[in-house]
């Protein structure tokens, strides 16, 4: 049990924010400094607005995206832009289209994307100023714009391309699970407007929550599970075909497309 804690089971959110990069990487690499990190995190973090974690298990917000219900309509994409007035050219939330096959045997599926609010968030460990941290009270990974120096390490470190440098604020930016809404009891903007009802938001460490029941009962996947980041965004029925598959010679026809790709990789 002790080992589990060190490496980052359900308590992993308490491992961070790390007091310093060195310790963070140690924690990540071997889990040896976990206890130190927990103590430091409690001391350094902002006073929690949520109820204190019970039995050592804090709230961990997460999202299930039921791709069966997604119609690729981008209502989430634009709701998010509007909620945060996200500058043109960048997205906190977006939808990828995956099209496969040769006529007439073709299919198209959608993959809504956002920050995974990882339990082991690489972005947090590389941040030199602690501007990016994982909130102990709810497990959301957030950016303190005032502390961010715009060094882009976190943008490089994120395996999900979830981060960008906001051209207006000059700070790293990404999805924050709409904490300003959630803290008032209102669902995140993307969840609220999802036409097919594909997004389910809640506390993944609360076994009674709708999201936990879904994770327990459905075949869920996460993005890039092999990276060990322990994402808190789960997918039901996602097609994980990606641009790497598109380059495989034996795969006949795969196209992964979205406007964000077109901007950054055109």
């Amino acid at each position, binding site marked *: 049990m002790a080992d*589990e804690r060190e*490496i*980052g089971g*359900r308590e992993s959110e308490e491992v961070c924010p790390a007091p310093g990069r060195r310790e963070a990487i140690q924690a*990540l*690499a071997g889990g040896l400094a976990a206890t130190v990190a927990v103590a430091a995190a409690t001391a350094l973090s902002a006073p929690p607005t949520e109820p204190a974690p*019970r039995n050592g298990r804090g709230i961990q917000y997460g999202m299930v995206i*039921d791709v*069966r*219900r*997604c*119609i*690729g*309509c*981008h*209502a989430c994409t*634009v*709701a998010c*832009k*509007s*909620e945060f007035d996200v500058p*043109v*050219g960048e997205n906190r939330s977006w939808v990828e289209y995956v*099209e496969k*096959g*040769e*006529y007439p045997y*073709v*299919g*198209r599926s959608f993959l809504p994307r956002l920050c995974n609010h990882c339990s*082991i968030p*690489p972005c947090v*460990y*590389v941040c*030199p100023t602690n501007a990016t941290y994982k909130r102990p009270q709810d497990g959301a990974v957030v950016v303190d714009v005032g502390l961010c120096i715009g060094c882009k*390490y976190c943008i490089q*470190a994120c395996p999900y391309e979830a981060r960008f440098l906001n*051209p207006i604020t000059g700070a790293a930016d990404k999805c924050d699970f709409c904490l300003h*809404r*959630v803290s*008032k009891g*209102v*669902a995140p903007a993307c969840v*609220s*407007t999802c*036409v097919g*009802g594909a997004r389910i938001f809640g*506390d993944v460490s*609360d*076994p*009674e929550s*709708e999201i936990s029941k879904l*994770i327990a009962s459905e075949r869920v996947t996460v993005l890039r599970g092999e*990276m*060990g*980041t*322990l994402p808190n965004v789960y997918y039901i029925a996602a097609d994980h075909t990606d641009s790497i598959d598109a380059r495989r010679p034996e795969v006949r*026809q795969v196209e992964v497309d979205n*406007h964000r790709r077109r*901007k950054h990789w055109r």
Partner: protein
Amino acid sequence: MDLMIRRREFLKIGTAAATVSAAALKPAIAREAREFKPGGAGYSPLSGTGREAVATACAQCVSRCPAIGYVEEGRMVKVEGQPASIRTAGKLCARGQASVNLIYDPDRILYPLRRAGKRGEGKWQRISWKEALDDLAGRLKKLRDAGQPEKFMFHHGWISASADRLINEVFLPTYGTGTVVNQTCLGQGARQAAFQLTWGAHEDNWDFANTRFVLNFGANVLEAHTNHVALARILATGIAERRFRIVTFDVRMSNTAAKSNAWIPIKPGTDLAVALAMGNVVMNEGLFRGEGEAFLEFCKVTPRNDATVAEKVEALKAHLAPYTPEWAEPISGVPARTIRDLAIEFATAKPACVLSSRAVSSNYNGVDTERAILLLAAITGNIDNPGGRCRAVVPEWSYPKGPQDRPPTRRLEILNGFDGAVSLPINGVGHQVLKMIKDGRAGRPEVYLWYIYNPVYANGEVGENIDVLKDEALIPFTVAVTPFYDESAALADLILPDATYLERYDFEDGVSPSQVPEYYLRQPLVPPLGEARDFKDVCCELAERLGIPLGFKTGEEFVSKACQMTPEVADKAGGFRGLTKAGVWHDPGAKPAYYGYRREISNEEFKTSFLTEGVIFDEEMGVYWNWKKAGVASEAEARRVGYRRTPGAHKGYEAQLMRERIFIGFRPDRINKTGYFELYSAVLAERGLPPLPTYRPVPEHAEMRAGDLVLTTYKVNVQTLSTTQNCKWLTEIYFDNAARIHPTTAREHGIGDGDRVRIKSKVGEIETTAKWSHSIVPGIVAISTHAGRWEYGRYASKRAPFGVDDAPFDRLKWWPTNGTHPNWVIPNSPEPVSGQQRWGDVVVTLTKA
């Protein structure tokens, strides 16, 4: 090394962590379930303070969804869905979410503008509203005083229900012009005509909540529809929960086709053949028995009104006999086996819902395609039933009608197309108006004013549209009422800056997916920016200036009075004040409207209350109608002329005699038809057209030469025809509309993926980029209708018309192209029955540029 995590270490952790997470899921600690409200409140992400919430309605497309707008320190910041709405359940699509881009479009027109240079030269002079309306009212007064009010032509696009009533039903008739053109012919014209001919009502609803099978002819309801969010949310849920199977015929794999259980590629313009062949299977295999047979009681299938069901069955069998699946296979490209299987599945699902759209009705055979689809629904008993295709239910608003002592309106005969081209132009043929003005034989308007409409861009033959609008000899004075500088406004003499829909009051009447009407209002979130004014207010002022006061002074007063006059709203929804607060209202005790046609007039009712004053029986049609309600001068005249030949007699329709019983039946709304569901249309027969749905190939397609391709246009989920491209959050998602083409077809034409190509038709040519795609049928080229704008501001086009500096945001615009508009090569050509624009029949050649 300190700065970066080494990949090797990272991977190691990953493996360890993966084993742990499974164990961590195990222990369950009881905790209160956290519920989040779906919406209805907004907060600033910066300060956390609450935002002012205002109930309103979206108008980014014709669906007009109830919405809530959020305002922060006087600035509108966000629009969300209305959680209390039974239509949308709080959902709003991407277009609606981007509404905020409209109000604060840096290229918005903020003041009245008068042309300073030559027409179309782009030189403008700012003038005051007084100057603008002095000029316009002066011209209108002159026309009216000369007895020629019809020379004022009003042309509008998708306008609100209240703008339609205030302007089209009150202001313009009071002024005296009937030269009023809408854009129905560009989208729903053929569908509506088929509906009006068959079941009277002009809109339909698809009851996804109760259906067990969905058969879709080309509808892309998950991306774009006249009732998009309301239907898409229920359809998406039904698909995800496997409550029904859905099969989609389309020439391209739309998102709707992609989400269907099967996408069945079909040759363009041939859905009629497949629908008829399915009808053939249903009749020949006896699948009409049961619900279908029962419904045939209410159908007219032969010239006789008193035919028995057995006779109707025989007539249908005989008519459909040639249309076998084997016959349809080479025409449509759909295997006979598939047609047969789907016909059986559709007929036996009980209930099943058949969908159709502009895509299959904007062809030469559009009206009969829609009629054949209605036939298929009828013979399987899937009309007006739970889970089937139903007549739409909308809120019925009462409103002030304005002065009633007005002379009859006069109109220019340019609204219905050239003589003989269109048999039954019930909804007008607006795409022919500029051609008819050019022709001149039926007269020309002196003043052409368009409102929420872009005649240059929205119609085909863009080049000709520009030529006609530019020519001052053809149209002496042009007025654009718009918040944005579009391709048509560029050719106006006067631009009146309109309020956006987030800056005005309206009542609306969107279709309810649950068959229970929902009343709702639109109200301003912020005052109109700059000197912009709601055109409804402007019409009220014009009426005052012309000495014909309408009885209300503003759009707001009109909407408020409508709330007083509409019993449901006044008595139950708390009137104007109650509805502006709550946003939406429906009767929670109301039962969904199904089977309305089955209501029978009993003998008792017939004797006591049915035969009120003015109700007479028409022997020929079997119709009970009220000649007084129909506006006929005397009973003698009504009896002499008869129901069929009396103009507007349908307004007096009461009930239909059906073989010795009297039913409410299918009430007509535009045509003097019977109360039967008319599979056999006497109205069409009278005009020498086949009375039962009959296959006719598209002539242009029949004449194609080797190498010719069919051009298909389509819509996507983040743009609305010609109105949303200035929304930067939408256009950054969808800015380019490369010509999609099947790789085999591309290779045959020597076109590589990404090549520049030239597409040529008999009316013009465009240059664009080819994009290979496996998701469209060979032999066509598909270009969406949303791009290629040369005006409409910096985000839609490359031009900022007034040169406003919008730093620091300007440097963020990143997309390299704005695509190509396909309408340059599409002729304005009417479907011969309804006048529907034939978007689908265009034949083009494709060469490397």
